[in-house]
Each structure stands twice: as C-alpha cells, then as structure tokens.
C-alpha cells in the first residue's frame, strides 16, 4: 500500500478528515452526526495514513499513547455523569450552559459525554489498528 500517490494525498487530506470529523461532531446534536460517527471519520483518515506511511509516522501524529485517548474519553464521560450527582440530581442528568458559541453551538454535559464517546472510539480503534499492524 506504500504508494507515493496515496502517501502524498493522505498528508494533505488528514487535516480535512479532522476538520470534517469535528464538523460532524458539533452538528451531531441537531443533525445527523455525533461523537461515534465523527470518531469513525477521523479513524478512517488515520487508518489511511497508517497504511500509506507506516506505524512510526502515524504514531508521531499523536504525541501520546492511544491508551491516553481511551482514558481521557472515559474520564470525560464519567465527569459528565457526575455533574448531576454533585447537584443532588441523578447521575447523568443533563446540564446546559446558557452561552451559545458560533459554529460550535450549545455547550452542556451531553456534549462533554459525546466528546468522551468520540475520544474512546478513536482511541480504541487506533489501539486495535496499531496492535494489528505490522510494517
């Protein structure tokens, strides 16, 4: 799979994958998209990168172990779940901030929760990919 064409293309395309994935993530609450879908989009980009350029170059993209992504994701989800408890509500009760940011939209614990899903799914699929891949 190490073709010059793919290698060059994926270098240019990876930021687009990332951008598109973020776009899918933030539109997810109102339109088709969301954490899981966005995570898969990014995963596809990185998998191409892995196939075209090899493990070392792809690992260098992250600067941290993919386990960290999983851990951070789970932490975000649990944090989102705990907000309700600290307010005396049931676990996972949704809380929203009043502000609305252009392009991103409303912020609240469900978004944090979704971000957790995003990180976990990216982390898990890349962990598996790195484990299976051999140069």
């Amino acid at each position, binding site marked *: 799979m190490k073709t010059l064409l793919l290698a060059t293309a994926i270098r240019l395309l990876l930021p687009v994958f990332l951008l598109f994935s973020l776009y899918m993530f933030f539109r997810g*609450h109102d*339109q088709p998209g*969301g954490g899981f879908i966005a995570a898969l989009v990014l995963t596809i980009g990185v998998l191409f990168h892995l196939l075209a350029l090899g493990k070392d170059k792809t690992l260098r993209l992250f600067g941290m172990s993919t386990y960290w992504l999983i851990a951070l994701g*789970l932490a975000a*989800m649990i944090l989102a779940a705990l907000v309700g408890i600290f307010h005396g509500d049931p676990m996972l009760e949704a809380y929203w901030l009043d502000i609305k940011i252009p392009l991103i939209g409303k912020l609240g614990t*469900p978004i944090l929760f979704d971000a957790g*899903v995003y990180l976990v799914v990216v982390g*898990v699929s890349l*962990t598996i990919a790195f484990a299976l891949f051999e140069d």
Partner: protein
Amino acid sequence: MLAALISGYLLALASLFFFKRFPRFISHLIPLLVAGLAGYYYTFWGEVTATNTLTFTYPWVSTLGVDLVFYLDGLSLFFVLLITTFGAIILFYSEGYMRGHAHANRFFAYMLVFMASMIGLVLSGNIIQIYIFWELTSISSFLLIAYESHGAEARKAALQALLVTAAGGLALLGGLILLSMEAESMYVPDILVHDFSQSPYLPYILVLIFLGAFTKSAQFPFHFWLPNAMQAPTPVSAYLHSATMVKAGIFLLFRFNPVFEGMEAWHYTLMIVGSISMLMGAVLAMLQKDLKKILAYVTISTLGLVIATIGIGTEAAIKAALAYLLVHALYKGSMFMIAGNTDHEAGTKDIRKLGGLAKKMPLTAAAAVLAGLSMAGVPPLLGFIGKEKLYEASLHAPVAEFTLTAAYFLSSVLYVSIALIIAYGVFFGKRKAENYDQTHEAHFSMWLGPLLLGMGGLFLGLINHALAKDILGPAVSSIAGQTLDMKMKLWHGFNEVLLLSAITLASGLGMYLIRHHYDRALSFLKKLRSWRPEMVYFKALDGLDKLALGQTRFIQSGYLRNYLITIISFFTIVAAYIYFRSGLLPEQIPDLAPVRTRNVYEFTPLLLIGVGFYKIFTTRSRLTMLVSVGLLGFGVASVFIFFSAPDVSITQFLVETVTLLFFMLIIHRLPRHHLLDNDSRRFFHIGVAALFGCMMTLILLSVESAESVSGFKNYYLENSLPVGKGQNVVNVILVDFRALDTLGEVTVICITALGIVALNQLNLKSEEQ
C-alpha cells in the same frame, strides 16, 4: 462520626501519595493522628452505658431502606477503643520496623485502610455495612500478607487467607440477609430485639453466621490460613492477626449473641468448635520453633477458648470471654512486636537460635516478661483475673463443666509453658544467637509499643475494678442483651478457682522443663499431616483448576466459526422460545403499503446486496470475499437512507469502511483461504444463518406493531428538543435519554481493545519463542 470513619481512608490515601516525599514526617504523623482518633472515641466513654446507646444516621440508599447507621453501644465502643489504641501503638512501632522499606507508603496505606474498615465494621448499624466492612478487612489483610509480593510463599498465603475469609464473608452475607428478611429490617438494633426462635430459616442462619465467624477467627477446620499469614510483616501480625481482625469473628458472635442465646445449636456448636480449636492450637503451638508461628497457633487456641466461653452462655461466661479477649489482645500484641524485635535485631525468630537476649535488649526483655506473666496468668496482672474468670465460668457451666474445665486447664498449662519459652527461653536462657555480640536494643519506637502493652496488662490488672465497671460493664450488657454489672477482683479468697490457677502455673512450669520430651511424644502428629484440613483447601483449589481446564477444552474449540455458530444458534433458540411462548407473533402482518409505493430505483440497494451475497458464496479469494461483504454492507446502508434514517446509514457506511480497512491491515498475515468444512456442514451453517435472519425479521415485525402501543417512539420524538435540547433524536437518545447504556457499551469497547492488545502480544511472544 462519618468524618471520623472517612478520615482513616483519607489518611491512607495521603500516606500513599506523600509518604515517599516526607517519610519521617508522615510515619510520625500517622500514629499521632490515629491516637487523636482514639481520643475522639474515648470521649464517648461514660456517655455510652449499659442503658444508653448512641445511633448516628446518615441518609444513603434510603429508597431501599439502607441508611448509613453507626451504632455505638458498649460492645462497639469496647472494640473501637481496642482498635484505635492498638492502631496508634502498632503504627508507631511500624515507624521503626518499616523504616527504609521501599514500599512503606503502601504498607501504611493498607494498615490505615484496614483500621478504618475495622472501625466501620464494629460500628455498623446495618447489615449491608457489616458485610462491606467485613470484606474490606479481608481485602486489606490480603494486601498486607502479600506485602512482600516478590515472595511466592507470601502470595500463596495471602491468596489462601483471602479465599478462606472472603468465602466466609459470602456465607455471612447470606446469613445476614436471612436475618434481615426474618426481622424485616436491615438495622442491627431491630434484629437484636427480634425473636427468631420460630423462624424456619434458623438452621441456615446459624450455619452461615458460624461459617463467617469461624473462617475469620481461624477456627477449626478453617484455622490453617492464620499460621500461613505470618508471612506478613510483623506489625501486621501484631495488629490484624492477633489483636483485631481475627477478633472480628468473635465480635460477630458477641453482636448476635442476644439473638441466639438459649438455642441449643448455638451453645453446643460454639463450645465444641471452640474447644477443638483451643486444644489443637495449644498443642500445635508447643511444637513450633518459629516465634511467630507459635504465637499464631496460640492465637487460634485463644480465639477458640473465647468462642467456647461464649458458648457456655452464662453471665459469668460472657464476662469471662470479654475479659479474656482484652487479656489476649494485650499480651499477644506485645509478644508479636517482641518477636519482631528479635527478628529485627538478632536476625532470627527461631527459638532454637535465640537465648540470653536480656542483657542486650533489656527493655524488650522487660516487655516480654510482663507479657509472659500476663499470658501465664500470674497475679496481679490482668491475665490472672482473666483466667480466674474463665475457671469460674467453666466450673459453673450448665453442661459439660468437667470437660470444659479440663480443656481450659490443659490449654492454660500449655500457655504457661509457651510464655516461659518466649519470655524466659529467649531472653534469659543460654546465649545462642549467631550474631549475639552485634545484637543491641531495638530503636525507641520499637520497644515502647510492646512495653506499653505489657504495662497495660499490669496496670489494668491493678485498676481492674474501674476497668470492669466503666468499659467492660457496658460491653457485657450489650453482649448479653440485658443490663449486667461487671465486677473484678484480684483476691477471691481461698477457693477452688485459686487452687486451679496455682496448679496450672505449677504444671506449666513442669511442662516447660520437659518440653523436649513433649516434642518427641507428639512426633506422631507429623504422620497426620496429609489429613489436615488444609488439604481440603488444596484439593478444592486444584479441582477448580482442573474444572476450568476441562470446561475450556470443552467450550473453546479455537475455531471462530464454531463460536459464531454457538452464539447465533443459542440466541436464535432463546429468542424463538421467548417469542412464541409469550405470543408476540403479530396477529396480522403490518401494512407494507408504504414500501410498495416507492420508486423503482429504490430497489437498487437490493441488487447490491444480492451481488454481494452471491459473490461471498462463490469466490475463492479472500480479498474478493471482503469486498463482497463490504458491498453487502453498503447495500444495507443505502436502504436506511431511503427509510429516512440518515444517522444509522452514515454509521453503517463508516463501520463498513473501517472494517474493510482493518482487514487491509492484517490481510497479508492471514493464511491462504481454504474451505475447511464439507458441504453438509456448510448447509448447516446456511440453515442457522437463515433461521437467525427469519427470527430477526419476526422480531422486527412485532416491534413495528408494538410501537404504537408502547409510545416510546413518540415520547423520544416529542421530548428530544424541549428536554434534550437537540433535534437529532438518535443523538439525544445516545448521549442523554439513554446515556447510561452508552456508558456501558463504551466501557465494553474499551475492554475489547485491551483484550485484543493482550491477545496480540501473546501471539508476538509465542512467535519470538
């Protein structure tokens, strides 16, 4: 009260994280803080009396009728004072003993967790708390025994202690639940006043509670874990395995004594099991050569003695049991620390190699003498009073007074002799230690503790009157379930009890002198080794391994297709059974008219699916097969578009892509594609797949027709925007309405990833070999 309990756990955390940076500071601070905690509990002294108990309630899971309740009566106060006072002394001792150990932070953290759990246990006002803290003490004990985790022996001993005591804990849970079902309350005070004599569950309750108590207190036939647990660092043995944790079983028996009092099964079981453990422990203790092993067997013996005394059940017996418990805690805590000192300074715990240490370690020797005198029961120490009380109880026992007195007498004689071995043989006998000349007194922190406890035995013996009235009195009252006055006296006048005490001392001295003959006479016991109860434990463990191996061989064929067939056919059968039994089959096929009115081009996905399906079965190339599966998936995904489920569709498209890419990662590592099954087998597979498909279709049809009844769909559609603040219903369901499900699923994904990584590394390792 809650804060006091939690402070122990917080201190444990603090020790874990900050110990390495400030080892001296923290290791000195911990005993001080624990002493402060003890001081806090001492403030209840006087407030808690035979008639006045305190209850602290904190709402917890109120909907299930479970609140955090701390119940402070005479019994729990007695135990809390014991735990915190000993905790402070032994933690101070640990400061010296553990100095310089690499993982001392863990040691202190585990010790504090244990202490806090023990406090929680004795203060528990509801059965759920009792169980949780009970198991927490087992777990912290496990961690402490396995502290020297690089030693295989320590790990084995720790596992054994955990398995035995945690299994007992499970039995206890059963017993507690039955108790609460009968009494219709989770709260200990309610259970204590309930009359169980007519309960049909009574036999089960008794057996389960006994299992819990006897495993924890190392009673025959579960005693074997305790001597093995001596692998733990000595402060642990001093604290957990003599003064506190093993007494949890006795605490339990004390706690529920009012409930079962008067039931024959209760009294006889306690007397019999207690007496067996008492005699067996004492006899075996004399045969041991390792100081800590000797002390461990004496502990088993003494716990048996206390349990047998509870079994007698008279007022005098309850008083004697509690008094002797305190006596034992004092001298045994002290002796363990003394054993630790000889080990630390003279380099051995073997009594054959120790002797004449008094000149080198005068203060430790002084502590040993005090503890030994109390153990032997010499006036005016507390041990003497304890022994008098025991004889008084056994001589006036309602049944079997002769047998009991004889058993007490025999074990007491052996105690006297063992006390001489430890206090006299080690410290005053001939110089035997190899490095005798280099031996010197232990550090201040290491002789203070044993000396304090030894002096405690003397001091409490002298102020026995106040001790009996203020501390033991309320405790005895709560054990007996009625107000009792406790009195102690050093001098009872000349009577049979005093005579027995004197004969005991004299015989003990005699036994000490002929101890070598004793060893020889009992050497036949070695032949019985293969009959000891521990063998059952080993056999059970071994059997478990074999069972696991056998069922793994049976279930795990190693062929993916077999797993798939098993999973799919199991699901199909179960689903079909439930489906047809509960009559879920829709009465009429739902109206498919909307499908029929669609445009022709919407059938193109079916073409994709068909082509993919056909190619999968006909191709011999793995790559083609992969692409065909992808084609099939894309076809299904496009169907979703036409039925306005864009989220599902996008997800399906992406998942198909990712799956394909994953295959690309490993396709060159897969072996060449072979057809492993013959045709009939393949048709069987096709049949299973078809059945599964039919079942799914049926279920979907039923779901479709049940949809209008349940109203779930409409609920989500209507509430998504106002409640979930999102227009994408699918996403709102995932991250808000049913977020708990998502959390669970995501956790499963994480575990899967770990499994794949682990399996892959296993593979790499075997390749390297």
